[in-house]
């Protein structure tokens, strides 16, 4: 037994040396994840700022000016043009000069004074549907607020039912709070996949794999020795990312650290398992890299990282049950924002453990099949 432990540790040590002695692979493991974390966190946000808009105001009255002042005073909007005709509106939108044109008819002020419902027309560039959707929300909020204030000042009756919105765990609905924990999962996956997916293929290319197989190391020991460095590197990188997320991006870490690390452990396990599986099936490093991407892209898209799983068709939703990143994102967001502990996340832990064990088992199976 002692011999087994020593052999596995020596193999792990060798893997470390092979990864870290080479300046290039050392850089690949350390620099890009951190750069990506910072770039993604700043870049990947759903919040819209300084939206270019134009105004087509046909109303000479006071109320249109009051309403438009609320737009020009908002940090979210930036006035970048005026239109006087439908043709001009079309040109502004088509040339992507503005995303939004506010059209106020000449009857606007008159209708308000006579107590009728006045209409503001918002023309939005629908080619970017996601942006258009968020944009409309902003416009609606401004118009609604104006409506309420106007009703008060003209002592009109307030709207019959009013909605009061309170977002728990992320009171200002900052999208960065949503995105940054997701990036922790994404980068952990990339690193644990890359460390293992290329390792056996590289040995095959160099011819050292045969040399390894003729030693008394059993396939299980080889798998263990190859996963160990992945764990250490995966843990180190996730820790670094968590620290950056909380200190630089001020994402609150409300949950328990053990709950977070149990998640990281189980997720790294499944990432390494999938990586080794790809590695055992690849003859060359190129195949290993392609295989990793083949796994990586769908598992990000089908994880709920950007788009909610609940929006997907039923059959795809079922498919996401096999995706380890899906569970890890739940764990991350709940631990970070909601302050969840271990108990509440037991189903996710269970799923990750099952996927990880199955992947490692399959990796060992493919690996042994290759030998016979």
């Amino acid at each position: 037994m002692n011999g087994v432990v020593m052999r596995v540790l020596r193999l792990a040590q060798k893997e470390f040396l092979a990864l870290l002695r080479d300046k290039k692979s050392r850089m690949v493991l350390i620099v890009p994840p951190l750069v990506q974390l910072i770039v993604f966190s700043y870049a990947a946000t759903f919040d819209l700022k300084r939206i270019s808009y134009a105004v087509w105001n046909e109303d000479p009255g006071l109320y249109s000016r009051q309403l438009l002042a609320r737009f020009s005073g908002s940090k979210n909007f930036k006035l970048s043009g005026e239109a006087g005709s439908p043709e001009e509106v079309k040109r502004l939108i088509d040339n992507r000069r503005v995303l939004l044109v506010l059209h106020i008819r000449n009857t606007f002020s008159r209708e308000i004074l006579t107590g009728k419902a006045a209409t503001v027309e918002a023309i939005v560039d629908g080619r970017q549907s996601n942006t258009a959707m968020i944009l409309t929300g902003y416009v609606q909020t401004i118009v609604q607020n104006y409506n309420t204030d106007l009703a008060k000042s003209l002592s009109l009756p307030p709207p019959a039912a009013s909605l009061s919105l309170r977002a728990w765990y992320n009171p200002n609905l900052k999208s960065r709070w949503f995105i940054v924990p997701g990036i922790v999962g994404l980068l952990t996956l990339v690193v644990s996949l890359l460390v293992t997916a290329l390792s056996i293929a590289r040995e095959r290319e160099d011819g050292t794999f045969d040399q390894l197989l003729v030693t008394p190391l059993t396939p299980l020991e080889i798998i263990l020795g190859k996963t160990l460095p992945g764990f250490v590197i995966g843990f180190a990188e996730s820790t670094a990312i968590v620290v950056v997320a909380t200190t630089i991006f001020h994402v609150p870490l409300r949950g328990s650290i053990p709950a977070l690390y149990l998640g990281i452990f189980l997720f790294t396990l499944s990432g390494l398992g999938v990586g080794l599986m790809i590695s055992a099936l690849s003859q060359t490093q190129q195949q290993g890299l392609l295989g990793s991407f083949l796994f990586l892209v769908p598992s990000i898209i089908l994880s709920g990282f950007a788009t909610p799983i609940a929006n997907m068709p039923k059959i795809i939703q079922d498919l996401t049950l096999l995706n380890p990143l899906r569970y890890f994102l739940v764990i991350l967001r709940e631990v970070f924002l909601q302050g969840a502990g271990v108990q509440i996340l037991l189903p996710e832990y269970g799923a990750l453990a099952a996927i990880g064990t199955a992947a490692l088992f399959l990796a060992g199976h493919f690996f042994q099949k290759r030998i016979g």
Partner: protein
Amino acid sequence: MAEANGPRSPAVSVRHLVRTFRTPRGTLRALDDISFDVASGTITGLIGPDGAGKTTLMRILAGIMEPDSGSLRILGRDPQTAPGLLQKSLGYMPQKFGLYEDLTVSENLDLHADLHGVPREERQTLYAPLLRMTALAPFSGRLAGKLSGGMKQKLGVACSLVHAPPLLLLDEPTVGVDPVSRRELWEILEKEVKGSSTTLFVSTAYMDEAEHFDRVVILYEGKILGEGAPEDFIRDTGGHVFLIVAPGIPARRLEPEIAKLPEVADAAGLEEGVRTVTLTPNPPPVPPSLDTRTDPVAPTFEDAFMLRLANKTAKPAEASGSSSRMGQGREISWGDTKTFSPTEGDAIAIRDLTRRFGSFTAVDRLSFSVKKGEIFGLLGANGAGKTTTFRMIAGLLLPSSGFLQIDGRDVTNGNVAALRGRLGYMSQKFSLYAQLTVLQNLVFFSSAYGMGGKRQRDRLEELLAFFDLTSFRNVSAGILPLGFRQRLALAAAIMHEPSILLLDEPTSGVDPLARREFWRIISQISFRGVSVLVTTHFMGEANACDRLAIMAQGRLVALGSPREIREGAKTPDSPDPSLEEAFIRHLNLKAETEDGEGSR
């Protein structure tokens, strides 16, 4: 041949060429003031030990690398002032020729024709003779990756000949190619040189090939050690070569004694005796206690080469210590000799061993056994099934059927695990972790075999000293010179003192000097009772084996001592065939019976 072409300007003319490399260990003068000519229409060989600068020179001639200083003329013109000269008039085949393995034979040819701008309508007339000469015509639709090693090399040559260049540079084109394919390849090249006025400049590690060249240039440590016709080199060596026989003592045991003597430049233990080259044209001073008979024999080019090198290294190198020899005067220890005394049974026994890949039978009912303490050679053409056999013995591949026994234990079903510690395996490519240092490689492999603590440390130091790797201990394995990489691979394979050593082409691409040293070690190890199973394409090495098996198309075609193999190939035409002739004869016999079966 040079004379026949009259006084033309030389195809290659090099003057005072210098090229240095900056290495972590200081500046290396890879080429140190080289001047020579290659006459037009000749085959000129470039010969020298590993690291002598052969590949650097080839790359500079091919225009891939710039010299630091010196001048260079190709076909009478300076390539720097004549743009397009090299692309048009030069064919270059590097050591690792870049065949696209996922393209077919004819697609590879097309690609090279495209690269050199050969007009489409001329191609078929150019291809036809090339495909005929290389016998690749039936395989023109096959993927290059599926060709055997010899066929790949032939295709590589065909690709470099596609644009009919007047000058062809070949960098070790026959490394790892079996004797039959090697012969065929040289027939192609000689025909090409004779038929057109092509000039061939070729580097090689095979000394028997050098004998057929018009001229040879010997390169050593970046300097030219000799230049001339091979016959002149051989003539100068007359009277220096002797065969020493001691009745009752195997030549392999006698060899280290002879090599120790002063005045001895080279000693090789062959089956018939110890072939000895002396520094002066006198018989070596063998002590009378050894009771030997010494006969002068005719020198070969290899003897001449070894003499030249020995003359060079014997004098000043001793002081500088630059020529490191391994195992000089030391004995390698082998702890547990009691477990395998040479008398009891076979180390490896194989009966009707078969391995099929789909419908292809790579190894077909193979039977032989390797005795304890024996050096057993496995010969055969590329693709004959040698490596497959090796992988089955090493437990890397399961036999489809048959019977395989190692150290008296049945391991047919792959239950080799318990025996792995007794096997040492060195693969064709000297597989080591390039990023790890010499020391880290040795530590890792010995730990994988369960070594640790003081025993491991002592063994490490012993082997580092024995293989003269001490000064390289913290150097990455990937940047070691080839000869040292080979030593390291052997050291890694024997750290754990295996009782069976499997060596798959262990000297492929290594120069004669390193090969000789390597075999001396192997021989020493075998005297410790270790059984050695080795594959090789060098007939000189095959001659040093105790017994040989020759394989063709997965089957055994001959088995016995080198003498028995030669006697089995006797014909009225050649009453005393060399081992290479015998080898080729056995393969042809096999092919004939095959044809006979086919026609019935």
